[in-house]
């Protein structure tokens, strides 16, 4: 008997319909209905990216629209890092069933709070004329809040669907606000809110080309600069089209970057780039690191962010000094790990490690050192890999599967350097380890929690390193090496661009990024103006047609020509 794939498909789909039909007549037939809807919209706009809102973007949006007092208590779906950034991963993620369940419960809780008796007066744009039904007021609320949640005006159909939900709920519960809460919940679980759906439209200036539409541009800017939804002024600049012009764009960029909210945007960027999302679940063996607890982990992350913001945003400093400067902030739990006195009465205090300290710059903070270590030991390899990946944009490939570990002997005694030297003698390993290990070995005076030490298993630790002929010693040597390496600022430029557009730059963007790195250098490596610099370039809003849409676009073009 033959196995004909098509017939099998028919058999399976017949079966699955039977199952679905049996258990839930009200449910939609799964999947099969979706595939055909690929006709181009009447208004010729196309969807060029679908990016899932991050946890902080979600929270910031809710607080901006409804106030700081709204409690947001839910487990968010895990984010995924791709090509170094969660922002790039956000463009590949969808929502799972358990994730949607969480958002659904959260949305109801937010609606209850927002439209509860205490808050509703400050949120409602109108007063309902009846306790049960006022469709004009419901419509006004839905289109007003909806446009802020969807980051664009709602279509009539989108409004009508929610007004219907509101009326139904209101009449059932005999309470106008009970119905409106359902409508708000429905906006909060909609894909247009949970995902940033970027749309492009035919470019009126270049026939056959697409440009990002103005509302998508506004969102891109707002989430990049402020990590939140566009405010009224930005939406207005999208609505009147001024964001498409250089003057309008420039004015908005100036406003965005001068705002105090730029700090939140920079924090979100560095949290992503420096991969600081790992602190929530960091585990250390308490038998080996008794000083470690979640408070230390949270403080270590906060220290890194405080340092970055203070040096780069407040002081508008040179990005490269992050590697060498010992000016930072500590709190009581960190002071204990650093073994320095804490005399301030405040929660955080400025602190500068003395000149003769072994520490130098951001890489010698407890945060970096503990995050890239094992639960019970340091890890020069992990630290080295992360230095290359995060700060030089040089990822390390996965280790080969067929490594012959038979030569590796037990190294309980002595220092970890010995164990790693074994890798160096193995040709399969050496390609990567000769690059990853030296920077990590230079940091070996810090254990798996980032505490200072000079000895391991009774032997003095050697912190000299040789990276392809460049030799340096210890953390200070490494710091200077990184400070002077042009790959570090270039990597920052690449990351800022990739973070904003949520795409890994390809070969075609190489020249553009080189130019931008040069501008960054010429202006003194000031991070504070880098967002603006990148967002002002036409490349920042360039549209790349997604796979599967080229033909739809081509046919609409030819149809237009025939007209």
């Amino acid at each position, binding site marked *: 008997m033959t*196995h004909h794939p098509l017939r099998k498909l028919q058999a399976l789909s017949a079966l699955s319909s039977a199952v679905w039909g049996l258990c839930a007549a009200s*449910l939609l037939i799964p999947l099969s209905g979706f595939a055909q809807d690929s006709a181009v919209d009447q208004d010729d706009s*196309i969807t060029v990216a679908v990016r899932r809102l991050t946890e902080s973007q979600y929270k910031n949006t809710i607080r901006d629209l409804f106030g700081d007092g709204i409690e947001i208590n839910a487990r968010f779906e895990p984010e995924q890092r791709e090509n170094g950034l969660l922002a790039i991963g956000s463009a590949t993620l969808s929502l799972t069933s358990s994730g949607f369940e969480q958002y659904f419960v959260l949305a109801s809780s937010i609606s209850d709070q927002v439209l509860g008796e205490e808050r509703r007066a400050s949120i409602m744009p109108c007063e309902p004329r009846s306790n049960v039904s006022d469709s004009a007021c419901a419509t006004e609320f839905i289109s007003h809040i909806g446009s802020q949640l969807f980051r664009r005006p709602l279509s009539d159909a989108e409004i009508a669907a929610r007004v219907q939900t509101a009326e139904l709920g209101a009449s059932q519960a005999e309470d106008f606000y009970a119905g409106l809460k359902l409508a708000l919940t429905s906006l909060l679980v909609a894909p247009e809110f949970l995902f940033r759906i970027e749309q492009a439209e035919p470019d009126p200036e270049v026939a056959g080309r697409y440009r990002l539409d103005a509302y998508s541009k506004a969102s891109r800017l707002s989430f990049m600069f402020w990590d939140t939804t566009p405010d009224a002024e930005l939406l207005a600049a999208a609505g009147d089209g001024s964001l498409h012009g250089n003057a309008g764009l420039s004015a908005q960029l100036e406003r965005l970057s001068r705002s105090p909210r730029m700090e939140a945007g920079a924090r979100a960027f560095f949290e992503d780039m420096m991969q600081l999302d790992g602190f929530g679940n960091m585990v250390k063996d308490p038998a080996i690191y008794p000083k470690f607890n979640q408070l230390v982990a949270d403080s270590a992350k906060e220290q890194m962010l405080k340092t970055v913001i203070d040096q780069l945003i407040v002081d508008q400093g040179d990005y490269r000094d992050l590697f060498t400067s010992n000016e930072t902030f500590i709190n009581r739990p960190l002071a204990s790990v650093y073994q320095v006195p804490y005399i301030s009465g405040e929660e955080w205090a400025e602190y500068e490690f003395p000149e003769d300290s072994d520490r130098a710059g951001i890489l010698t903070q407890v945060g970096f050192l503990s995050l890239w270590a094992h639960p019970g030991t340091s890890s020069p390899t992990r630290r080295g890999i992360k230095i290359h990946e995060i700060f030089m944009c040089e990822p390390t490939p996965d280790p080969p599967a067929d490594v012959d570990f038979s030569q590796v002997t037990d190294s309980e005694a002595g220092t970890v350097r010995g164990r790693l030297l074994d890798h160096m003698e193995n040709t399969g390993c050496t390609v990567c380890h000769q690059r990853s290990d030296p920077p990590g070995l230079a940091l070996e005076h810090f254990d798996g929690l980032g505490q200072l030490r000079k000895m391991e298993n009774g032997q003095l630790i050697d912190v000299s390193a040789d990276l392809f002929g460049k030799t340096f010693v210890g953390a200070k040597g490494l710091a200077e090496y990184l400070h002077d390496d042009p790959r570090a600022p270039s990597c920052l430029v690449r990351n800022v661009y990739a973070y904003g557009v949520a795409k890994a730059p390809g070969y075609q963007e190489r020249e553009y990024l080189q130019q931008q790195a040069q501008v960054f250098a010429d202006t003194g490596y000031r991070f504070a103006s880098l967002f603006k610099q990148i967002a002002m370039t036409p490349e920042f809003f360039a549209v790349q047609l997604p*796979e599967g849409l080229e033909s739809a676009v081509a046919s609409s073009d030819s149809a237009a020509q025939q007209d």
Partner: protein
Amino acid sequence: MSSRFNRRSLLRGMIGGATVSMGIPLLDLFLNENGTAFADGAPIPTRFGTYFWGLGLTDTPTGGTRWVPETVGPGYEITPELQALAAVKDKVSVFSGFRAIPDGRPNLVHWSGHASILSGVAPSSTGRFEGASFDTRVADALGGTTRFKVLDIDASVSRRPISYSTRSGSTFASPDVTPLDLYQRLFGEGFQDPNSDDWQPNPDIMLRQSVLSAVTDQRKALMDSVGHEDQIKLEQYFTSVRDMENQLAIQLQKPEPREACVIPTPPNEIERAASVDVVNANTKVMARLLAMGLACNQTRVFNFVHTGGTSETYIAGNSKIYHQITHDEPTDAQLGFQPETSKLAGLVMEGLGAFLNEIDGVKEGDGTLLDNCLICAFSDTGYAKIHSIENIPMFLAGGAGGRHKAGQHIHAPGESVTRVSLTAMQLAGAPVGEFGDGSMRTSRPVSEVMA
């Protein structure tokens, strides 16, 4: 709405299409009458789950092993690393010699093995599968009539939540990671006691349904002019919405009584440490909650992760983690194997033992809950020291309602792991006749274990 499948309708569905593609064992499976029943005569449903642990089991450089039994077929002997399964060994089949076949793709360490088992294809990059994991196909077949279509659980206390269940190949399920999370999900708000006498439908649920209909109303407009990748993402989103709609619809029905259902007390917060004793304790507590979730008919499908692929578990106080030890530890010249690695493998298997004992500890019908489950347990590697994707240890546990001829050792060197996956799907009752791609494509389940 019926909460049970009608076997005749299922068969009609198949015959209406083409029976040719359905293997004989699959037909057998629908026709067999071995299933047990509740006291009132209603058949007890089969439940399905996956159980994953990291770093395989220990082989030796000379071709020996610490886990593969010598006896093939029924009545296999307990080997050193299978000690923890002794109590339930008659309900567990052991599969040895099966391998992942990457067909020219690289062996992505600690990834290609389980990606092959779950998706039937060796992936081209770490972090992604080339397609859906097979548990979702079983969930589609079995999971539609319970409150949760599937439960994802991660007991590993890792840096990031771990799940290998995916519909799109890129977005993985977000698991419950603490016993308290799991408890609240199962028995917190929204739980309806199936044995309660005074059940009333909650009118709020219908209102919540209307919230979702406003969302699905916009589906067509949204799916217009999107690229291929975005379409897959949005489809998954709408599948999730549909699961939620289903959950609400089920909550509007009076639940059928379940005599085995006893609502558990809330668990304590766990210690945040990834040492193997903590992970095993966590596994035991979460297994007990899950068992009650199954017995109380809250779900019929689950995915359980004990430890992740590159397992970071360790023996408390030991500075090296398990993963490091598998690679670094030399083979002991006299013993012929890695003693510390093998010890850790045995400890990690205690997690599986505890898990199965908990499921087996719940009485249901004439037997136990485990008799009505089919649990597919597997790892990412065979011999972890060399990242081998040959001889990946796999187990099928539970009676599958009488369909699984358990307690056997199947030894099939060189055979594709997907044969075990296919067997698991068919034993669980999923209508799947073929699984996998390239050299791992198969329509041959392991018929020896199918009643």
